[in-house]
C-alpha cells in the first residue's frame, strides 16, 4: 500500500503544499513567482479567476470581486456574492479553488489523496466543509490534521526529538493576520490538542500599521509641516496621501524584517523631490509592539490557567507564523514562561512540513482510481495559431477547439512572470501573450472542461521576441571588430551575425590593451570589418576604420582602461560607431557610409609585412611534410604580397588615384586564399595541442593533487565547448597558453624542477651577471645545496642569481601588448 505523502496547509492568509519523499519534505513552489506559499485569496476580474498574489492586489480596486479570509466562514451558511459572475459562492467553493491551485504546483504527478490542516478550533461541520473542499478540488481522499499538531510534528521530525515521554508543548502561532495558541500533550507518540485560544484579527499587518502611525507619521508631520497625517492617509477620500500610505506600509514591513536581524533600520522616502531618511531602532519597535505582544501573552496565560498548567510544565514553546521572526516576541515569551523557545525551523512553512510528515506515515485507504483525464489530455482537436517571431510587446494566440466545446483555459509563461488565470471560453479564445523583450518566451497552455479537469496541455510553446524580424534586410556577412589577443596578434569578434536583420544596434565594453602616452606617436585603432568572424582580420573588408592618435589625446590613456563602443547599422547599411573612454572622458561619434571604403596605408603595410612572415613559415612547414602542391600555391601568394608591398611604396605620395583600394582588394583575395590553405590545418593543430596538454595536466593533477590549480583547470575546461567550437585559432591558442601556465605551475611543485632551473642559470655566460664574482660564488653554493638535497636553499640561490642578471628574462606568460590598443 502507498502512503498519502502530500500535506497541505490551507491557511486563513497563506496556503502551501509539500510532499514527504525519502524521509525529507519537498516544498512545492508556486510556478508563478516561485514562492513557497500562496495567498489564500480568490478574485474575479475580466471573466478570469485569479488566485493568490494577483487576486490579493485587486482587493482595493474591486472589493466586490475579491475574496479572502473565507476560512473563517467554513461550514457556515454564509454566501458570498460574486458581482462579476452574478453568482453566489461559499467558503468551500473558494477553498476548493485554492486547493486546486496548490495541487497544480505538483507538476506531472496528480495527487489523489492529501492531508489538509485545520485550526484547532474547527468543529465537525467546519472540518467536514474542509473535506468537501478537498473533494471538490479533485482529491478522492482527504485526511484532516490540526494545525498545532502539524507544527509539533514539523519540529519533532526535523530535530529528531523523542516523542516517547509525556510532555506538554505550547504552539504559539502569530501569522500575518491571525494569532492562535494551543496546548499539545505528547504521550507515547500520541499528540493531542488539549485546548487553544486565539484572536482572528491580530497579526503582522497590525504591526506594520503601528510603525507607520506611531514611528513614521510623527517625523513626516514635522518634516512636511502637516498635521493629522495618519488620518488623512487612511481616509480613502484623500488619494494623494493614500498613495503615501501604501508606500509607507511597504517600507514599514521591510524595516520590520530588517529590525529582526539588525539593531537599526533606515527608511528612505522620496517625497516631492525631497529625500527624507528615517532611522528606526529595535527598542522603538519593541516599545511599539509591546501591547500587541502582551495581548498574545495574556491569551497564552489564560489558556494555561484555564487548563491548570504551570509554566514549568511547558517543555517547549514552538513558534509558527512569520511574525515570530521578531526577536522581542521570543524574549517576552521566555521572560513570561521560562520554557525553551524553539524557532529552529522556518515558521512560515512549519505547518506544511508537519502535514507532509504526517502524510508520509499515513497509508492511503482508497485505491487511487485510474485517472481518466490522462486519456482526455490526448485530445487532439485543439488548434493553436500564433506567430513564432514577434517585434511587439504582446503576441496574439488564438485557440480553436472543435465540437462546440465550453470550458476554461489558462496560459502561464514558464519564467513565472505571466499568468492569465482560469478564463472561461466557448469554442475559441484569443489571448495576447506578454513577451520579455529580446529573448525566447516559453508558455504552457492548458485547457480544462467545465468541471476544471485538464483536457489539453501544450508545454513550451515558444515565441521569439526581437531576435528575428521578418520584414527587414538580412546581413550578407558577419560584422566584426578586430581585437588584440594576449599573444601579440589580432582576431575578430563578431558584433552582428550573418543573416541578422537590419537595422541593428549593440553596445560592447572592451579594455585598452597598451598604454598610449600623450604625444608618443602610438595609436588606438578601431577596425570594423565585414566578412567571416573566424578568418584572419586582414582577409575581410574594412567597413569602418578609426585611428585615435596619441597627439590628439588630452591625457595619457592607460592599459586596462575601459572603452565603451556603440554600433548601429541602419537599413541602408550606414554604420554608426560611438566610442567613449571614461578614464579620459573622450567621446567620438563617427558615421561610415557603405559606399565609402576605409583603407589605411599604414595598416595595409603592416598586415602585408606580417603576412609575409607567416607565409614563409607555412611554406617551410608544408615543404617539410613534402606537400609541394601547397608550397607552390603559397609561393604564388608570397609573390603577390611582395608585389603589393612594392606598389605601396609608390603609393605613399598618391592621394588622388584609387590604387590603394585596388591593393586592398588584392590583399584580401590573397589573404583569403592563404586562409583557405592553412586555416583548417592550423585549427586542427591548435585543438590537438590543447587536448594533449589537457590530458597531461589531468594526469599530473591525479598524481600530485593541488586544489587551487585543479579549480583553475576545471574552470577553464568547463567552458571548452564554447571556445573549441569558436573556429577562432587565436582564441584556442590563448586558452592553450592558460593551460601551459597551469602545467608550468604544476612542474614547479616538484623540488627537482628547481635543480633544472638552477643549471639554466649556472650555464649562462658570467658576463650576463652584474657581479661575476658573486655569481660564481652562488653557483658553487648552489651545487653544494643540490648535493645536500637542500631545495629551499637552491630556491633562494636562484632568486639571488635572478636579481644579479643584467637583463631579466621575459615572462612567457605575461600578456603581450596589443597592436591595435583594444582587447
Amino acid at each position, binding site marked *: 500500500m502507498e502512503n498519502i505523502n502530500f500535506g497541505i496547509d490551507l491557511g486563513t492568509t497563506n496556503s502551501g503544499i509539500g510532499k514527504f519523499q525519502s524521509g525529507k519534505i519537498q516544498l512545492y513552489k508556486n510556478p508563478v513567482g*516561485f514562492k513557497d506559499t500562496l495567498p489564500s485569496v480568490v478574485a474575479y*476580474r475580466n471573466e478570469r479567476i485569479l488566485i493568490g498574489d494577483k487576486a490579493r492586489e485587486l482587493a482595493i480596486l474591486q472589493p466586490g470581486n475579491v475574496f479572502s479570509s473565507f476560512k473563517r466562514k467554513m461550514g457556515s451558511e454564509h454566501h458570498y456574492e460574486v458581482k462579476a459572475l452574478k453568482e453566489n459562492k461559499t467558503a468551500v467553493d473558494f477553498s476548493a479553488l485554492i486547493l486546486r491551485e496548490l495541487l497544480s504546483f505538483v507538476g506531472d504527478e496528480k495527487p489523489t489523496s492529501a492531508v489538509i490542516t485545520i485550526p484547532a478550533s474547527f468543529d465537525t461541520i467546519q472540518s467536514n466543509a474542509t473535506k468537501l473542499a478537498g473533494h471538490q478540488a479533485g482529491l478522492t481522499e482527504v485526511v484532516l490534521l490540526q494545525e498545532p499538531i502539524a507544527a509539533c510534528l514539523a519540529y519533532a521530525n526535523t530535530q529528531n526529538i523523542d516523542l516517547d515521554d509525556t510532555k506538554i508543548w505550547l504552539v504559539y502561532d502569530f501569522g500575518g493576520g491571525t494569532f492562535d495558541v494551543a496546548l499539545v500533550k505528547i504521550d507515547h507518540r500520541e499528540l493531542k490538542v488539549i485546548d487553544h485560544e486565539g484572536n482572528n484579527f491580530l497579526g503582522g499587518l497590525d504591526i506594520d500599521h503601528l510603525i507607520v502611525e506611531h514611528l513614521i507619521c510623527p517625523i513626516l508631520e514635522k518634516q512636511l509641516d502637516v498635521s493629522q497625517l495618519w488620518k488623512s492617509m487612511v481616509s480613502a477620500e484623500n488619494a494623494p496621501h493614500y498613495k503615501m500610505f501604501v508606500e509607507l506600509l511597504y517600507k514599514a514591513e521591510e524595516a520590520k524584517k530588517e529590525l529582526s536581524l539588525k539593531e537599526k533600520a533606515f527608511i528612505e522616502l522620496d517625497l516631492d523631490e525631497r529625500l527624507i531618511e528615517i532611522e528606526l531602532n529595535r527598542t522603538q519597535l519593541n516599545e511599539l509592539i509591546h501591547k500587541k505582544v502582551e495581548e498574545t501573552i495574556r491569551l497564552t496565560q489564560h489558556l494555561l490557567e484555564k487548563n491548570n498548567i504551570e509554566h514549568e510544565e511547558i517543555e517547549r514553546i514552538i513558534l509558527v507564523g512569520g511574525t515570530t521572526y521578531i526577536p522581542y516576541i521570543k524574549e517576552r515569551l521566555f521572560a513570561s514562561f521560562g520554557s525553551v523557545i524553539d524557532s529552529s525551523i522556518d515558521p512560515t512553512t512549519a505547518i506544511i512540513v508537519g502535514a507532509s510528515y504526517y502524510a508520509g506515515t499515513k497509508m492511503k485507504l482508497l485505491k487511487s482510481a485510474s485517472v481518466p483525464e490522462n486519456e482526455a489530455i490526448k485530445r487532439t482537436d485543439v488548434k493553436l495559431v500564433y506567430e513564432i517571431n514577434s517585434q511587439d510587446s504582446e503576441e496574439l494566440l488564438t485557440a480553436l477547439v472543435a465540437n462546440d466545446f465550453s470550458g476554461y483555459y489558462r496560459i502561464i509563461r514558464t*519564467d*513565472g512572470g505571466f499568468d492569465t488565470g482560469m478564463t472561461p471560453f466557448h469554442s475559441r479564445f484569443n489571448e495576447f501573450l506578454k513577451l520579455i523583450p529580446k529573448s525566447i518566451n516559453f508558455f504552457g497552455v492548458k485547457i480544462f472542461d467545465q468541471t476544471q479537469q485538464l483536457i489539453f496541455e501544450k508545454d513550451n510553446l515558444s515565441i521569439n521576441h526581437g531576435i528575428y524580424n521578418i520584414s527587414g534586410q538580412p546581413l550578407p556577412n558577419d560584422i566584426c571588430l578586430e581585437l588584440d589577443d594576449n599573444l601579440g596578434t589580432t582576431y575578430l569578434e563578431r558584433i552582428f551575425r550573418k543573416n541578422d536583420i537590419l537595422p541593428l544596434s549593440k553596445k560592447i565594453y572592451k579594455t585598452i590593451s597598451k598604454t598610449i602616452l600623450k604625444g608618443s606617436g602610438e595609436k588606438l585603432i578601431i577596425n570594423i570589418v565585414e566578412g567571416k568572424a573566424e578568418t584572419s582580420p586582414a582577409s575581410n573588408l574594412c567597413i569602418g576604420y578609426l585611428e585615435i592618435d596619441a597627439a590628439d589625446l588630452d591625457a595619457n590613456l592607460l592599459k586596462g582602461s575601459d572603452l565603451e563602443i556603440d554600433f548601429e547599422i541602419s537599413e541602408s547599411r550606414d554604420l554608426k560607431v560611438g566610442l567613449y573612454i571614461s578614464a579620459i572622458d573622450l567621446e567620438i561619434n563617427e558615421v561610415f557610409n557603405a559606399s565609402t571604403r576605409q583603407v589605411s596605408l599604414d595598416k595595409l603595410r603592416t598586415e602585408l609585412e606580417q603576412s609575409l612572415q607567416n607565409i614563409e613559415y607555412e611554406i617551410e612547414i608544408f615543404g617539410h611534410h613534402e606537400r609541394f602542391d601547397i608550397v607552390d600555391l603559397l609561393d604564388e601568394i608570397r609573390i603577390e604580397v611582395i608585389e603589393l608591398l612594392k606598389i605601396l611604396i609608390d603609393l605613399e605620395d598618391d592621394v588622388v588615384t584609387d590604387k590603394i583600394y585596388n591593393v586592398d582588394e588584392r590583399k584580401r583575395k590573397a589573404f583569403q586564399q592563404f586562409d583557405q590553405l592553412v586555416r583548417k590545418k592550423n585549427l586542427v593543430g591548435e585543438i590537438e595541442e590543447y587536448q594533449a596538454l589537457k590530458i597531461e595536466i589531468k594526469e599530473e593533477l591525479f598524481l600530485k593533487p593541488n586544489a587551487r590549480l585543479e579549480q583553475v583547470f576545471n574552470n577553464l575546461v568547463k567552458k571548452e565547448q564554447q571556445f573549441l567550437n569558436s573556429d577562432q585559432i587565436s582564441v584556442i591558442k590563448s586558452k592553450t597558453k592558460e593551460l601551459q601556465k597551469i602545467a608550468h605551475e604544476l612542474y614547479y611543485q616538484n623540488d627537482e624542477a628547481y635543480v633544472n632551473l638552477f643549471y639554466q642559470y649556472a650555464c649562462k655566460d658570467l658576463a650576463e651577471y652584474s657581479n661575476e664574482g658573486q655569481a660564481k660564488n652562488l653557483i658553487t653554493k648552489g651545487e653544494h645545496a643540490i648535493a645536500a638535497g637542500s631545495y629551499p636553499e637552491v630556491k633562494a640561490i636562484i632568486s639571488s642569481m635572478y636579481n644579479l642578471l643584467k637583463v631579466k628574462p621575459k615572462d612567457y606568460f605575461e600578456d603581450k601588448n596589443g597592436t591595435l590598443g583594444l582587447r
Partner: protein
Amino acid sequence: MKDIITQIFEIEHKIKKEDQSVFKRNFQRIYHELELNGYIVINPVGQRYDERDVSIEANILNDLKASLMITKVLKPIIYKEEDGKRVLIQKAVVIVE
C-alpha cells in the same frame, strides 16, 4: 544578488533628474554586466496595469480611472537566466493609479 540589484536600482532612482546624465553610462554598464551574468532587470514604470502580469506586486490606489498605470516602482522585476532557462527571482513592487 537580487538585493544588490535592488540597491543599485534604488541608487539610480535617488539621483536628481539634472544629475542623471552624469551617471547614465555607469548604470548602463552595470545592467550590461548583470545581463552577461544572466540577470535581466526590468523597470515596469509607465506600463499599463495588467492583472495577468504576475511579475509585479501592485498596490492599487483607486479605481476611478479607466486605464490604470504603474506610476512608481519600489523594486524592479528581476529574472535570472541559467542554462537557457529564465526564472523570475524578484517581483516588482509597484504603485498603480
